[in-house]
């Protein structure tokens, strides 16, 4: 069973703001989704390898060779605020 608190908790983790009516609607939706997923639990999967990726690929890697990075100027274009070459953000305390 999914409670409205579960939904609110998941929303908070994902930094999504929900109005109360949205939370109750989404609780019902999520309940239905989980019911559907739960059907998988009725299947016998003891001989099935867990899927870790949907593509039939493996061992894709690159050589350790340097490629040009973006310049500081280019990068800071996407910042909301900047200071001394850095992204300026509201103070976070460790």
């Amino acid at each position, binding site marked *: 069973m999914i409670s409205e608190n579960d939904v609110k908790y998941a929303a908070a983790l994902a930094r999504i703001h929900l109005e109360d009516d949205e939370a109750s609607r989404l609780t019902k939706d999520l309940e239905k989704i989980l019911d559907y997923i739960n059907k998988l639990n009725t299947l016998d999967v003891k001989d099935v390898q867990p899927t870790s990726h949907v593509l039939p690929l493996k061992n894709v890697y690159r050589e350790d*060779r340097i490629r040009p990075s973006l310049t500081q100027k280019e990068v800071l274009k996407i910042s909301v605020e900047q200071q001394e070459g850095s992204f300026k953000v509201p103070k976070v305390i460790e």
Partner: protein
Amino acid sequence: MTIAAKQKYETVIGLEVHLQLNTATKIFCGCANKFGEAPNTLTCPVCLGLPGSLPVVNAKALEYAMKVGLALNCKVNPFVKFDRKNYFYPDCPKAYQISQFDLPICSNGYLMIETEEGEAKEIRINRAHLEEDAGKLIHDDKNNCSLVDYNRTGTPLMEIVTEPDLRSAQEAYNYLQNLKLTLQYLNVSDCDMEKGSLRCDANISIRPMGAIKLGTKTELKNMNSFKAVKAGLEHEIHRHMAALESGQAIIQETRLWDETRAMTFAMRSKEEAHDYRYFPEPDLVPFMMEGAAIETTRKSLPELPAKKRERLMEQYRVSAYDANILIQDPALADFFEECSKHYKDTKTICNWINGPLMKELNTRKTRLADIGLRPEDFTVLMHKVNEGILSNLAAKDILRFMIDTQRSVDTIIEEKGLAQVSDDSTLEKLVQELIKEHHNIAEQIRNGKESAIGFLVGQAMRKSQGKANPKKIGGLIKKLLT
């Protein structure tokens, strides 16, 4: 706290080490993996997590991780995948870190350490996995903001986690030292705690001696040097004991070591901090670590410090003390072995390496590889001392000139006039002069006071600026006065 109170408890420590790998590029993109550049000059859409970019694993990072795992006696797992660890923090531009959750690249290893009693002890490694480092945050109190530099974002990082096998702060320190040395032999990281290329967090708890159940643990962070790890742990162990002794409970929390105040304090943390909602990373496909590749890597491992120490002691009859110094730098151990081909007495070679040579390296703050000293030249000094051509003192001077000028021993002896004087007539003249100058002392020697001979030998050395052969001088004094 009384000693009896301390002996009531057993300390239990597990360490989590984060190690930056010194690959040329980052783990998932081609940005240079470099420390100390201007902020935000080593980034790209991949390490900034911009939409539409795709990470691709750096083959070297996988190879290095495999090396570390094998050196730590781990099993390299045949099937490796990456996972997303989700959290919001400004140092993490994607809002998730690519890490490994249930299938780490390496698991179930161990590293041997020496206990305080000098016994060998196995510290089990639970797992060693690959992940990416986060950016660097600087807090600007004046402007009430934080500044983010993403150069470090995506630096390949290995997390090496022990089982709770360590029983004291000293054991934790010894483990870290051994781990660092082993990693340096592999040449996969700078292992510099001050620069942050090796970082260490600790889980600490105490329990009544003999108890099986673990006590409540605290996690200790912010220890920025090997010494700080030891001091921080000692302080935290003491805090646990004092709390339990006075009937207080330990709260499970993360604490920070404050180096200047020499104490730990609870970290202010947000709720929901530890719900990372891991799931398989859809942007990276899995890896099959082939048995043959693992074996090739295993064979490519250098001789590791513990093995080298053992071999030096057995093959060259070197003392444990000397061997421990030699293995601190594999280049030094190699140098010693080369020297042994040119000079038979290995104890003398060790004395020369651990004494004068180390002194020269320390005063120059340099490493052996950087001074261009050849074993065949270095051992010439020992031969010359042994043959009485050089005094020990002059030989040490020559070593310094050799390193400074890159000239041969013979050239320096000639230029500086440092050859030891062993010629009988010259020395006899010198002794005759001294007897005249110090007739009181000479009289004492004539009357059988042998201990006064040393004084005259010292005067002879001074007068000859260290060039007189002291053995011969001693003999001559005896001959002329007794």
